[in-house]
């Protein structure tokens, strides 16, 4: 049940993050981003969180001003994908403390690291929030140490 891509798109249609788990040419990627963004932005509230795009399914959910979008295969489990998105949002939220779109813009590399801790090859690698946050905090600690060493020199 691989996820093919994860997109974070603002309500104005700006891409805030794009992660691809399949190999596609830049042209194909931008076509998908454009089409899917358009489809998702046109959906009204109360509609379901799933839609079809070509031979794939698109699972999305809106959080404040951002749409979190995942593209999956036609027979993948929709709800469980939806909850992967939610878990990602929860991790971001915990890390940044009430995450906002701005956090993701200025710390885009962190957003990618966290997604990497959650998903590899489009599959969930770790569902425990504690485990994901611990991994990220460990990285931060190493960086902090390096920065301190730098200062003390």
């Amino acid at each position, binding site marked *: *049940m691989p996820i093919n891509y994860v997109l974070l798109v603002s309500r104005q249609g700006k891409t805030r993050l794009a992660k691809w*788990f399949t190999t596609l040419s830049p042209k194909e990627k931008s076509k998908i981003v454009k089409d899917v963004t358009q489809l998702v932005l046109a959906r009204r509230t109360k509609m379901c969180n799933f839609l*079809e795009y070509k031979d794939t399914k698109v699972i999305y959910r809106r959080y404040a001003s951002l749409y979190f979008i995942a593209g999956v295969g036609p027979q993948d489990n929709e709800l469980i994908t939806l909850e992967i998105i*939610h878990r990602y949002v929860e991790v971001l939220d915990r890390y940044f403390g009430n995450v906002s779109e701005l956090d993701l813009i200025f710390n885009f590399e962190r957003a990618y690291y966290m997604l990497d801790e959650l998903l*590899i090859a489009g599959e969930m*690698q770790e569902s*425990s929030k504690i485990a994901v946050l611990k991994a990220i905090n460990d990285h931060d600690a190493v960086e902090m140490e390096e920065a301190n060493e730098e200062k003390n020199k």
Partner: protein
Amino acid sequence: MAMRGLTVFIADIRNCRVRELEEKRINKEMANIRTKFKDGSLSGYDKKKYVCKLLYMYILGWDIDFGHMEAVNLISSPKYSEKQIGYLGITLLMHENSDLVRLVVNSIRKDLDDNNEIHNCLALHAIANIGGREMAESLASDVHRLLVSPNSKSFVKKKAALTMLRLFRKHPDVIPAPDWAERITNIIDDYDLGVCLSVTSLVTALAQQYPEAFMLAIPKAIMRLHKVIVERDFSADYVYYKIPIPWLQVKLLRLLQYFPPTEDPNMSEMLHNVLQTIINNSQETPRNVQHNNAQNAILFEAINLAIHLDCESDIVRQATNILARFILSKETNVRYLGLETMAHLAAVTDELDEIKKHEETIILSLRDKDISVRRRGLDLLYSMCDVSNAKTIVSELIRYLHIADYALREEMVLKIAIMTEKYATEHSWYVDVILQLISSAGDHVGEEVWYRVVQIVTNHENLQEYSAKMVLHYMRSPHCHENMLKVGGYILGEYGHLIANLPGASPIEQFNTLHARFGLCSLATRALLLSTYIKFINLFPEIKGAILAVFNQYRHVLDAELQQRACEYMAIATMPTDDLLQTVCEEMPQFPERESALLSRLNEKTGQTEDKRTWNIGGKDSNEKTPANLLAAKERNENGSVDDLANSVSNTSISAAGGENGAAAPANGSPAPPTPAAPTAKTGLTWKDQLAPGYENWYNRLRDGADGILYEDSILQIGIKSEYHGHLGRLAIYFGNKTHTQLNSFAVSVESPEGLVVANSHTLATSIGPSTQIQQLYSLECQQIVTEVPLIRISYQAGSTQSIYLKLPVLMSRFIEPIQLSSADFFARWKQIGGAPREVQEIIKVPGRIELERARTILVNHRLGICENVDPKPGNFVATGVFNTSLSGKVGCLLRLEPNHESNMYRLTVRTTSDVVSKHLKEILHTALLSKPAPSTR
């Protein structure tokens, strides 16, 4: 840690109110970074900062074509923060086939071997994100080591498992999965649920490919499910809104769907317990959205597994009741999934009664306000359709068709047509529905639909009279769609005489009905109607006069196809005897039974993706052909040819084309619309590198425009016939099977150079019977100046898949039309063109003696007109022609060929109005003059 320069830059960009300002700021920054990078003496921190800026620009959608090397350098930095940015850089900027992959493989291997696990993780992420063949080949065993080693920490194992999954998906041949099966499967028992989750994903993918080797996964999965769901043994970290690790539950339930039901009674019992517990847990609807979603995600997967195990079990009956509740739910997601899962059940079970109880609700779902739900409703109706409810469902769908979304209509039309054909008990119903469909859905009716109607009417005698009557009726309605006219034209042409005695259907009335719309329809349809008219002359000699008037008028139209038909039909109709007319217009024979083109069209729409499908939309019979049963389906394909109606229609036109200079024989319908040659798969090797050994022998003989053999080995003989006219050409390729067995999976594709369009007229049969020959007709259109020739790939199954790559002798000179010029005209133009670069000259020393006759033949074969008495020196050749293209206009070609008998040399001077053409034409003639005199190939 925070980089001030980066933050400032991002803030700057955000302050750019318009795109022009943003572009300006980006360009400034790019220029700045470029100079910094050129400088070369950057600190690690600065390098990191600039790579980050580039990445930010990349995310905003700007093209980043430098900085890759700096990212690669950062990878080998001893500092974690720099290394990390380096890895992020290469995963975002690099793709698997990049040349730079080679450079990073060694750094990655070093990090994989590192004692620091954090470095291992970065390396694994990089492999999983890029995953090229080179990485797979050199690093797969390192990844495997990290996965199975007892010393690996859990968080490394998880990543290793999924990294291997990515490599396997991309390059399955690199992973010796069966050898590793046991050790990998055992990890499902790992106490760490995160590891178990990752490994289950890996096993799911491997087991689809090697089910035998991974049988061990069945008991492991069942026991793990039992432990989590029934024994409730799990660590608290992994509870997600009161549900223990829903992702793992879903994965394991899905994994079991790729295996046949277990035969071990203990395991069976355990699994039953698991499923029953899940069903019981779902009796209540939790308030919390996440809790509810997770619970339902598991429930739906459990139902899918239960259906897979035994679609008549008690569990499935309980599930059906839950689904019935779900499709009425207020929550859109639940309705959607309820319909989807019910469609799965309907697709595999014999027992449709439970589902049919909800027919009304399901039909109502077609009016849901969410298109996603409407789609699922349509799928379910299609799956649950059988003889008993076909009439209701079809009539509901037709009613709904008028208001359906445009995006849905074509699929609906296809499905209605299939259901009608499959479940029709009365012929008249079939005809009524299909004609109603064609008349009301108009543009959404694909060509396949009306081809199929013609096919069925032709094969069922008792349908013919009724359909002729109905089609005439529909064509008289004020809004008659062109597709109706096509069906009408064909059916009346064949069976119009059956209704000629009815009031309002006399021959002239039939003719007038058709002809009233003649002027309004497309050229293809008009061509079809002309064929109908010649058939009318045969059926109803009394209206010959009226029809001849039409032919006469159309003998002068601009369109070549119509003109030719009109001329030839006129000639046939005005012959002294009717013998030829009668032979040509004999009733069409029955079509051979074949798989409906509609079904293949529909199946084409639901393509395969990475994970195999566990079921297909459609009734039970469409699921007997699911991957597990592909063999049976394949056998069926081999016995009856799967080519569609269009194929058989245009097959006849090829045989006629050879003899009759491209005219379509009157007996067939409209020529099938040419479909562009199948796009070629982009493989690592280009076709050119794989040309069949020795292909030149045949190819060179055909360079001069002859027809003959293009290739021959012990199995296959390939021949071509061609004709050219201006910028257009036709190429018939014959494939002969020389063996005494059938050649299967036969496929042909053409890669044409830019500027040359090569289109095949129909889908080729996928097999060639023993000692038989099939043919494919290509139409060629030279749009621009082309200097390359098209390549063709022929593949078939003989033990293993054999592929033959060949060049097609469609040289540029084929699109030249010879012309004759007088001496004055020639020299005026010769001077006008002038010298280089539009003049190209070459001295050619030929092997052996100069033969003037041969030189003349070569020029003529390359379609140049030889102008006599132009050159003051007799013995010199002067030749002229016009090279035609449809988009880039015409190019005049002039040349002189001066033989020197003493030294056996020619001097060739080519002047054309395009330097590219001059150069290429010179090369073509050069090669031709150097080649050995070919033995006659005709």
